[in-house]
């Protein structure tokens, strides 16, 4: 085996839908979502030799029912991939798709793979977070984690506790900014081109879902002020400054340098390094800080080398903690240019590839930028970061 470069060639996703009975995907299976995304991605590369795909990694947090049964393999069969193409399932909660990319990317990096599909799916309507989980009683009995660690909203409140200067007002302002940037990106047609429309059965006939369902472009700080704080009385985390419960799937095509040449692919970015790190579970939202430091160190870069950031907005305050740590302004224009999970939604295990796809599109628009970061927090106190190099970079 020989070490080789890892390229992000292309990525797509389904439009994201509201989780639950009122959402567009209530009657649509989770595996069908990722299968449709997979076929939609492959349709964009009609000449691709499918037998050359070395593996398919699909992440899901709740690996049961229509998200179970080794979904990377089942999805490949359902999508009509050749039987010779294997597949597997991945779980690292919110960073599932990111881990699918880093794991299969690592396989390319050591020369074991040349071309892979990596993505994720989460139907939070059919699989509510933590449903049927059976945490070991020792977690609480031996105080291994605080009871707050298992409730993501509580972990976000904890960030406000630890960093009192990250106020609710700042969080709300950041959230409104996310909604506005997403609306603008939609207006400019930047999001739609990587969405795979999904036909969804409803009690009143078939629907074609062509855009994200959860966008709230008209949000204002004023309007958010009095939203309920479901996680604690007089708290700071609301439905306005958190990502909503979401259904959706994402998938990306990664390739080695050889495969890029052989299959005549046009990659958009190159993997530079990645890092995962752990923090106290009850304040998991700060996880991306150490994971990013780790990834920067491995890449031999500093935060100042990074020209674009795609940070998953599980909670506004959690992104603010990252920006605050690295001395970046709340409204820095390098950050989440198209908006983030607060606007689009956060279907846990699928979000990682959405970040990468948006970063790769921003790279196209910004040849002056050389490096970008995708980072996200992960339940039970973790963070994940991947650093990417812009293949459109034209030098300074």
């Amino acid at each position: 085996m020989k070490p080789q470069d890892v390229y992000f060639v292309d990525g797509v996703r389904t439009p994201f839908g509201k989780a639950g009975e009122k959402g567009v995907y209530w009657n649509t299976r989770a595996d069908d979502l990722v299968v449709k995304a997979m076929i939609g991605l492959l349709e964009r590369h009609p000449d691709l030799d499918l037998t050359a795909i070395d593996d398919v990694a699909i992440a899901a947090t709740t690996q049961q029912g229509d998200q179970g049964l080794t979904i990377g393999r089942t999805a490949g069969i359902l999508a009509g991939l050749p039987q010779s193409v294997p597949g597997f399932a991945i779980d690292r909660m919110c960073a599932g798709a990111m881990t699918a990319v880093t794991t299969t990317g690592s396989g390319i990096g050591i020369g074991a793979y040349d071309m892979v599909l990596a993505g994720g799916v989460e139907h939070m309507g059919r699989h509510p977070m933590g449903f049927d989980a059976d945490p070991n009683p020792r977690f609480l009995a031996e105080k291994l984690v605080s009871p707050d660690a298992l409730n993501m909203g509580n972990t976000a409140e904890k960030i406000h506790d630890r960093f009192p200067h990250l106020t609710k007002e700042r969080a709300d302002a950041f959230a409104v900014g996310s909604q506005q940037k997403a609306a603008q990106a939609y207006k400019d047609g930047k999001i739609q081109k990587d969405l795979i429309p999904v036909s969804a059965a409803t009690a009143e006939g078939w629907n074609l879902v062509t855009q994200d369902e959860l966008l709230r472009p008209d949000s204002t700080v004023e309007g958010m002020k009095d939203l309920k704080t479901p996680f604690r009385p007089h708290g700071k985390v609301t439905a306005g400054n958190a990502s909503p419960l979401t259904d959706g799937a994402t998938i990306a095509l990664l390739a080695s340098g050889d495969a890029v040449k052989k299959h005549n692919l046009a990659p958009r970015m190159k993997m530079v390094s990645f890092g995962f790190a752990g923090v106290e579970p009850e304040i998991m939202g700060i996880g991306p800080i150490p994971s990013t430091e780790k990834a920067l160190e491995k890449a031999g870069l500093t935060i100042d080398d990074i020209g674009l950031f795609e940070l998953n907005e599980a909670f506004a305050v959690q992104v603010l903690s990252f920006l605050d740590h690295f001395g970046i302004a709340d409204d820095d224009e390098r950050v989440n240019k198209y908006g983030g999970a607060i606007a689009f939604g956060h279907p846990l295990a699928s979000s990682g590839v959405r970040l990468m796809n948006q970063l790769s599109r921003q790279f196209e628009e910004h040849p002056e930028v050389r490096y970008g970061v995708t980072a996200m927090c992960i339940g039970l106190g973790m963070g994940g970061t991947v650093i990417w190099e812009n293949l459109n970079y034209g030098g300074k």
Partner: protein
Amino acid sequence: MERFQPLLQDTDEIITHSYVRDIKLASGKTLALITLDNGQDHTRPNTLGPHTLLEFAGKLDELKQRAKDKEIHGVAVTGKPYYLAAGVDLTKVQGLQDRHSGRLIGEMGHWALDKLSDLGVPSFVFINGLALGGGLEVALNADYRTVNRAAPAIALPEIFLGLIPGWGGAYLLPNLIGIRNALKVMLENPLKQNRMLKPDEAFDLGIADAIFDSSRFLEQSIDWADQVLGGKKIKRKNQPGAVEKATIWGPAVSIARSMVEEKLGKVPLAPYRVLDLLGAAKSGTKQAAFEREDQAIEDLSAGDQFRASIYAFNLVQKHAKKPQGAPDSKLAKPVTKVGVVGAGLMASQFALLFLRRLEVPVVITDISQERIDKGITYITEELDKLVAKGRLSSDDRNRYVGNLSGSLEYAAFADCDWVIEAVFEELKIKQEVFAAIEKVVREDCILATNTSSLSVDEIGKALSKPERLVGFHFFNPVAVMPLLEVVRADKSNDESVATAMKVARSLRKTAVITSDSAGFVVNRLLGFLLGEAMRAVDEGASFEKVADAIAPLGLPMNPFDLLELVGLKVGAHVLDSMHAFNQDRFYASENLHKLAEYGKLLERDGKGKIKGYDKKAIDIVGNSSNGGRSAEEIFEAVNVGLAKEIKLMLDEKVVHLPEDIDLCMIMGAGWPFHLGGITPYLDRSGASEKAFGSTFHTPMIIGVRD
């Protein structure tokens, strides 16, 4: 619309609703998508009744207005998951009490579906799933069609049920895909045991303009429609032009007509009506064509054959699944190893079927190693042929060959749960075989005999446990014929019969339980019919005269063709054993034995096609003078005789219901749907009344009488 009021009186229709949603297309245009959905689960297909059509037409009227207002750029129709629509609800058509209502069904369908051709914007139907009859005609009335590669079946099966495609199909289809293809879809396929099209075939024929895989069928269809709206040109290679209409159209219909005459005779009405409509479809206006369809629907839906066909369809689809007199299926014993006595052709066919369907070890025995080897070679070669045809995987072939063994000793049956014999049809031999087998098999092993003419109780007399013996009567060819007569002898116990029924189901046969009586059902009635034919011949009537005399029944084969098919010797044996059962009612013919000795009855050309009757055969029976009773008398004797015999069979409880008789004759002797088997015909022809002063069915299964 006022004129459809009589149809709308029906209030218990399961309405298939038309849900409309605007779909924003990638081009920015808007497609109004209608989903047909009856709100039932996936076991209940959409059907198209009057209220459904009314709602559909109403939605199309609204969309026409919206198209005019430039709000929408196209209209598409698709169905709920797995179904476009399975056509008109036939139980409703069957219940119509007057001719006019039948015509209204035709007219209302035309009125509603034709709106798809007059929206002011292009119309599409996305055939997402099952599309049968009127369901497919919804698609044919639109401008463009796509089809899902996973749709289970696409067909216009109407003539199978005694109707015609009457919502535009008989005109639109030939004008879309050409006359030859239309004949295939509307005539040839329904006559081949109601064969249906796979989506790829429908696409190749030109019924659909595009085909997509199921995973993103709707998404891709919508995208394709967007391209068509944007000016994409659609080529239809099979669409007939002026040349086809001027040259091959007429001759193609004529050829098909002679094919039908040869195959079915002139009794069934629907195939000829379809031929008339297809012949006329090459010219004239759509309006005139639709009126011809309306008239055909009126005539056929009021007719006897349609009602009999629906009756027969329900027998095969529903009645067959609930066998009369079957013991609790829980009593059935698991069958994990099968023994077959004999390695001859019949026994080898059994072994092959058990290997493939039960997928358990099968052991065959015979009197010499040579015969056993021959049987095993035959079975292995048959399996290899299936592999070569791609109908069996080589893994499964290896499994079945590995499951097959032969032995000279009955001891090999020691661990069998089920042993069936196919030895020579002689009571003493069968008794000896079973007595010997009983010594080696387990206490609870079920024994089955394939006898067609001996008493199962008699065969069981040599057994110490006769309750374990059942009759299990196959029809030849074993792999093809769907019927099994499971014979419950007086001594047979519930466990044995339940096991036999379960085995029959595993073999994918339709099983009917009969009592232990001569000829059971099929051979008793065929024996009677063939006996009457030979009686007439022996009286001096020519073969032609007898065949013609019986032709109005509309059987798939005349008695002499049938005799030669089953073998003259077998035929003579059946007649003899029925005659032995009752000499007054069943005729045995010495002449038939002579013909069997001689070897043939029919004259054939080089290709084996029947040309007429063999000269020598005519000499042997001496019927060249064509004497005897008149054709009418012969026919009357057959009809009334059949009615009497069936009444006796029901009184004797050979089977429980006339429905069981009809099911047997349809599945075991290929008697046609349009007769409803036989009893509906005997009722309405008056034979039942003459035979026993009543009818088999009350009310009779009969069309509208004005």
